[in-house]
């Protein structure tokens, strides 16, 4: 929380940084588990849940 990223005196909230990192992590995970996600009852919903888990895990544990 205390380590805000500033670019040209514009301060980005930490969550924004984590969202950016989550996009990359999610794309990697989605690519690795695409076969399993496509077999879910609702593939889009399953992907949404995975993206939430990725964001939360990054923020809480990294």
């Amino acid at each position: 929380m205390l380590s805000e990223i500033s670019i040209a005196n514009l301060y980005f909230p930490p969550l924004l940084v984590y969202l950016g990192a989550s996009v990359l992590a999610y794309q990697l995970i989605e690519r690795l588990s695409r076969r399993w996600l496509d077999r879910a009852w609702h593939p889009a919903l399953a992907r949404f849940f995975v993206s939430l888990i990725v964001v939360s895990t990054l923020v809480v544990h990294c």
Partner: protein
Amino acid sequence: MSIVKLLKTAATLGLGVLALVFCLQLWRAYVLAPWTRDGRVSAQVIRIAPEVSGQIDQLWASDNQWVAKGDPLYRIDARAYRLTQQQRTAEFAEARSVFEQRSAQFKRRVQLGGAIAREEIDNAARDLAVAQARLDAAGSQLAQAQLDLDRTTIRAPVDGYVTQLRLQPGDYAQAGTTNLFVVDGHSFWITGYFEETKLPGVRIGAAVSIKLMGFDPLLQGHVASLGRGIADTNELRNDSGLPQVSPTFSWIRLAQRVPVRIELDKVPDGVELAAGMTASVEVTQPGGAPRWRLTQWLQAFM
């Protein structure tokens, strides 16, 4: 519905429950955790006013200069006060002389005993008492004159920094009127304005990490106290004496912010504090895992 389809549905919903649990953790870490970007460096500012009036003839302090307790800051023209002191000294000498004369007179009267009237002894005793009172008064006036003379030199009451100096030799210093400010160099603390929804996580004595906007190293401190009152704008009254109650959107409730005083325990070398600086403040939770390593890592490389 086949067993495979049932399993697929259960797996998706299980994933959803897992996501919900993680989101709750995220909510606690980001929204409910006691942290704020709205912290300020605060310090005690001592307002210095002379206790005697006069023209400033010497100015030793300069703007933003460090001064130690007792260091002279400026001097008021002392000539008038020196003359007063001389006058009081003379008056004191006169009173003492009168007192000694009356004292000797009284002793002589007492020694004469029955040879003189009792009234003369009583009068001598009364004269001696009057002389004693005048001597005491003259002594007090001399002490006051000496005090005023001493007060023509204004000294720093604390270790600190002279700030907003707008004095020049030749300015007239009015007794009781503030004309110089010193920021107490040992009094810096942080005021964190925490939303009231985050106060349950703010415990007295809890360790606090502070990040100043202008300096990279983290400062360490602890929660010293919670502000016990902020102004309620609804309490303002108009000319008729009626409270000016503002209308609200009942579905949007803004949390009030309460000032929390954080005493500094450790200020890293190279960090220069100035009252009013902006700080981000995070109250450490007991057993809390280290967070925000990603941003710390990014910040270290940017």
